[in-house]
């Protein structure tokens, strides 16, 4: 018997012995996948303004830098952020709108750069797929304005642009929105890389980007 057959046979033997509740033969497994009938909170109730305020507060609470701006001012906000960081050489994913990129610095579009190449950049600018206000989390799904996972991992500075329409209040809302992208690589980011492994003292910045800056674009 193959290991696969044997492990499956062991499971069936283990469950055959009067599992509680009894397992009906041939019944379809599992609960409804749409969260219907959930007893926990599946959506928030904040208005758009307070929702963005909560996201900004929770991002900052976990040591992300936060800037608020409007769609018209986005380019200027990006320039100020990049200048404040002193970054001169940035990598961007292929689908990021070039109109928002600052002038006077070198911007390289990722076309499969090696990890060592990426290590030589001062930072990366991306969009986001979803942001969760309650937990201060941004989620990247590898869309063209977010790029491969490596580009937001190796450079030491990540500037992420989040638009109001991408913000949800709760984790269940984010999971529900991401269901259609579940087969893409997803990265959930809540603040910069951190560790508390030494005497439980929190240290920001280990292997991932040590600075996470988020620009929230209001309605």
């Amino acid at each position: 018997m193959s290991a696969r057959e044997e492990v499956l046979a062991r499971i069936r033997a283990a469950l055959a012995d009067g599992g509680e509740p009894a397992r009906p033969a041939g019944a379809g497994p599992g609960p409804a996948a749409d969260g219907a009938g959930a007893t926990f909170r599946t959506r928030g109730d904040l208005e758009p303004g307070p929702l963005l305020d909560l996201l900004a507060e929770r991002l900052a609470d976990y040591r992300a830098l936060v800037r608020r701006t409007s769609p018209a001012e986005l380019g200027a906000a990006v320039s100020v952020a990049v200048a404040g960081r002193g970054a001169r050489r940035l990598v961007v994913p292929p689908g990021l709108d070039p109109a928002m990129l600052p002038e006077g610095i070198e911007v390289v579009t990722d076309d499969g750069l090696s990890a060592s190449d990426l290590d030589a950049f001062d930072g990366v600018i991306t969009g986001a797929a979803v942001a969760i206000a309650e937990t201060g989390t941004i989620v990247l799904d590898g869309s063209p304005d977010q790029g491969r996972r490596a580009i937001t991992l190796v450079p030491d500075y990540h500037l992420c642009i989040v638009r109001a329409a991408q913000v949800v209040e709760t984790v269940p809302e984010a999971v529900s929105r991401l269901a259609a992208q579940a087969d893409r690589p997803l990265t959930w980011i809540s603040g910069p890389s951190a560790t508390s492994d030494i005497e439980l003292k929190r240290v920001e910045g280990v292997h991932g980007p040590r600075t996470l800056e988020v620009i929230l674009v209001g309605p």
Partner: protein
Amino acid sequence: MTTYLGLPTAPPGVGHLRGSEPFPAAARRALADTQLRHNLAVATATIRAKRAEVVAELGDWEELRAAGQAAKAGAMQYLDRYLEQLETQVQARGGTVHWARDAIEANQIVASLVEATGSREVVKVKSMATDEIGLNEALAAAGITAYETDLAELIVQLGHDRPSHILVPAIHRNRAEIREIFLREMADVDPALTDQPAALAEAARLYLRRRFLSARVGISGANFAIAETGTICVVESEGNGRMCVTLPDTLITVAGIEKVLPSWADLSVFMQLLPRSSTGERMNPYTSMWTGVTPGDGPQQFHLVLLDNGRTAALADQTGRQVLHCIRCSACLNVCPVYERVGGHAYGSVYPGPIGAVLSPQLTGIEENATLPYASSLCGACYDACPVKIDIPSVLVHLRARHVDEARKDRRLPGPEAIAMAAASWMMAGSGRFAAAQRAGRLARPFGRRGRISRLPPPLSAWTRTRDLPVPPAQTFRQWWRDEHEKPS
């Protein structure tokens, strides 16, 4: 190999599920280590407070716990079908699925997969399953070097040490000790390294960075594996996990079969329960989710190794199977009065604390971890803290009963406890005998000092060695009753 209902348990001689000595002996030594007790008290109190704060933020915490428990119970009830569904989905997205009956087979599978890449080095994300099966030792025997990349696991590995906590494996080391280890073990470390946590973290970053950038093989565990979509989920803080699952050409994930969750929507529950219970954060800094292989993004070879190693033996026990719901958050360790005093090493297994006391004996067979179900005062704090409501105290009592039953079946001589219980049973069965025993109890009064008895002569000294007894009253209850009610006034 002990069996329960005929299902094989984790084999001996490989991995880290068994200690070299029984819990009481290991605990006695740990209790004498004042530095360890101090570190543990500070650490567990800190995490307890953080967890309480973020759990209180959610008004629906109890509903989330119930939903987590229900999702896990549903996953276990149809475990075979969910695993087949997971396999189908991973394969459909270009991944390869392997099945391992036990630690030996899992180690062989991983070693041969690494050998096939031609690489002699791997980078590893912290993973309980690979600690459990002793993968690093097995790889070393095959001439492959495994680099632990989680900071705490790195401290443990460089210190030639064993992890002592599920979440913070180096909780028993303070900053001065960590500095010493880094200075001794890291080839090109700055000799002026201080013991500031930020400086130590920076040293680890530099030490591991070139390994990440040049790594060709990554090895991870899995926090969740979604049957519906084939998605694997790894939750972490430092970014070492992202490095290991993103940069190498080949990724090998070792997951216990109980890590499967039925549906994508289940993440809405578990991505709330796990971070808040584990690190006491609203959300951990990084979570990676991937499904098979994504062309142009991340490893182009993905292998998922599904591990039994005694899990089906636990599944066969109707009371004990709930321990397979565990999501390795370690909240039960941090609230446990026993763990807080003895630390993780005393449990002898990579799974310490209350959950270890119910998980390790089921994976190995009870006789090989027979003292662990007794490593508890049954106070119940672990049950209250568990995000998926595992009734650890009930399982502890159940496993004690199984231990006694199995010992009896083996026709071993009755121990002192069994003799004492049999004597107590005989004594309590007759009212005359019971009254005589109560009167006899007063004979212990001369051993008392200030209302307490701290030392009795052998064999009763076995009890008083670790416990005080209240001094028996001068009068038994029956005598008092007679004096009050039966004498004519």
